[in-house]
């Protein structure tokens, strides 16, 4: 292909990406817009009289929400890893009888609409007093990630060479020891991938937050934004500033996980 043609492709690609990302740009633009310019016609396409007023307001009002989301996200990651990593190991390497059925259940579990789970959780949490608590929200949020996480771990761990498992066994290691000292260290990439997605999903969750934590004293950032929209629909710079801050984990995931997802499982394990 000639250089001229490639140049043309790149230009078109940039234009398409710009169109696709326009809403993201607009969110950032509005977050810097002064309140008095908000309903101006024509709207400012660039933040010409840029202001940080929206962000100042957010830092005054939304920090507790961001902290709650951080805690819920980290709790969800921990719970997801503890439940999913051993399961992935077993399904990938230990050939449990009935494992196929469990895999089927996991695939089906991913298809259940969260709004239905939310209603079921509401009934249960009401009875066991987990409504509007952080552990309750963490439990509910983890259901978004656990089936996915088991399937990812299984796929990664299937790629670990059988020779490594045999060698570990010959050295006298039991299944538990092999899991902890061989499989887990080799699965670093799967752990990173699962953690990032579990965190992102818990961080982004709105359904479980609004059904199970609507009257809680600790509420996540998604509810923070939701209350903002409901209460003061004039201060769109503050709403969009919160939205920008709430998007940071997604940006980090995009930069970091790109590399990790692509990296091979056993790269570096058996070089020779």
């Amino acid at each position: 292909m000639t250089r001229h043609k490639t140049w043309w492709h790149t230009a078109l690609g940039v234009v398409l990406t710009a169109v696709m990302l326009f809403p993201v740009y607009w969110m950032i633009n509005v977050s810097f817009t002064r309140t008095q310019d908000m309903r101006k016609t024509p709207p400012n396409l660039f933040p010409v009289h840029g202001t940080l007023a929206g962000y100042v307001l957010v830092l005054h009002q939304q920090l507790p929400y961001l902290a709650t989301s951080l805690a819920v996200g980290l709790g969800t990651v921990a719970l997801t890893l503890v439940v999913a990593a051993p399961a992935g190991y077993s399904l990938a390497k230990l050939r449990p009888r009935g494992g196929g059925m469990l895999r089927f259940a996991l695939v089906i579990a991913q298809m259940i609409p969260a709004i239905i789970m939310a209603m079921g959780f509401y009934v249960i949490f009401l009875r066991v007093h987990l409504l509007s608590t952080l552990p309750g929200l963490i439990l509910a949020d983890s259901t978004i990630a656990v089936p996915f996480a088991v399937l990812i771990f299984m796929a990664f761990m299937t790629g670990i060479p059988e020779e490594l498992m045999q060698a570990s066994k010959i050295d006298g290691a039991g299944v538990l020891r092999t899991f902890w000292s061989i499989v887990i260290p080799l699965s670093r990439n799967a752990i990173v991938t699962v953690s990032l997605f579990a965190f992102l999903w818990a961080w982004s969750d709105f359904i479980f937050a609004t059904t199970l934590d609507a009257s809680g004293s600790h509420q996540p950032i998604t509810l923070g934004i939701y209350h903002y929209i409901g209460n003061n629909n004039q201060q769109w710079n503050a709403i969009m500033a919160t939205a920008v801050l709430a998007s940071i984990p997604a940006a980090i995931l995009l930069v970091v996980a790109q590399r990790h997802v692509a990296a091979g499982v056993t790269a570096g394990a058996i070089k020779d």
Partner: protein
Amino acid sequence: MTPAQVRGAGHGAGGTAQAVPPAARSSRRRARRRKDQWAAWAFLLPVTAYLLLFYAYPLYSNIDLSLKNYTVQSFVQGGAPFTGFANYLADFRDPTFVPALEHTLVFTGVSLVFQFAAGMALAVFFARHFRLSGVLRALFLVPWLLPLIVSASTWSWMLDSEAGVINYAAHFIGVGPVNWLTSPHWALASVTIANIWIGIPFNLVILYSGLQAIPGGIHEAAAIDGAGRWQTFWRVTFPLLRPVSAIALLLGLIYTLKVFDIIWIMTRGGPVDASTTFATWSYQLGFGNLLPAFGPAAAVGNLLIVMALAAGLFYLRVQRRSETQ
């Protein structure tokens, strides 16, 4: 033969094989295999308990809700009377049922068609590997990774009747201000547009990976045979992508049936019921009113599950068939 069996046989032949009679050997092998099974299931114990407690139990309580007549009091204290399918019948007779069903189908169908078409066009485009194609393709993932409340509130503001940038852009092509979110004619279209935007990256990723799996030689062969670009796509690429396309569409169907956040945040299913779907209707019944109607809400939810599972089982069948081919 499984590795466990291989190991068992090797052990027997190498060491004490001569001394042990065959029957004892096989029973020892069976014991070893049983021990392996115990270990395998020990590792599966957490996830099994988890699935029972946090999937099966909520689903069971949802079915229980839908078959009994719950009031706020019996909801807390228990003892609601069993009413069979009364909640389901109440839903069918509800004036919201038909619009909600229609909107669910239109929202899902239109979203799927546009997401898939755009994703396919972009996948073919990015498969050309031009300069910056990797970076731009990664940037296309952004809408998919953003929290839905972020996307939904951004679109809400862009579609605002007076101050929205969409109406500002529309006036250049001579279109008067449209009440995107507050007019019953446009509310469903507005949430569908936002949902298409969120769904394009997913289709792009799946179809792009499908394209990567097609050997490059096939396209060269088509070119040598004198096929044009358009012809190559429809006669060669598209048929080869059929299994991947089916998976993208069916997963898209399952995900789109579930969509709740975007619609609820942008329009709350309104105005009146103009953009309500099964997902938002269920939430509206259970949590959106002062007096919750948990039974009918759970019944709507269970109808939604049946739709999602039907699509899901169909997906598994398609996937298995494409794997065996």
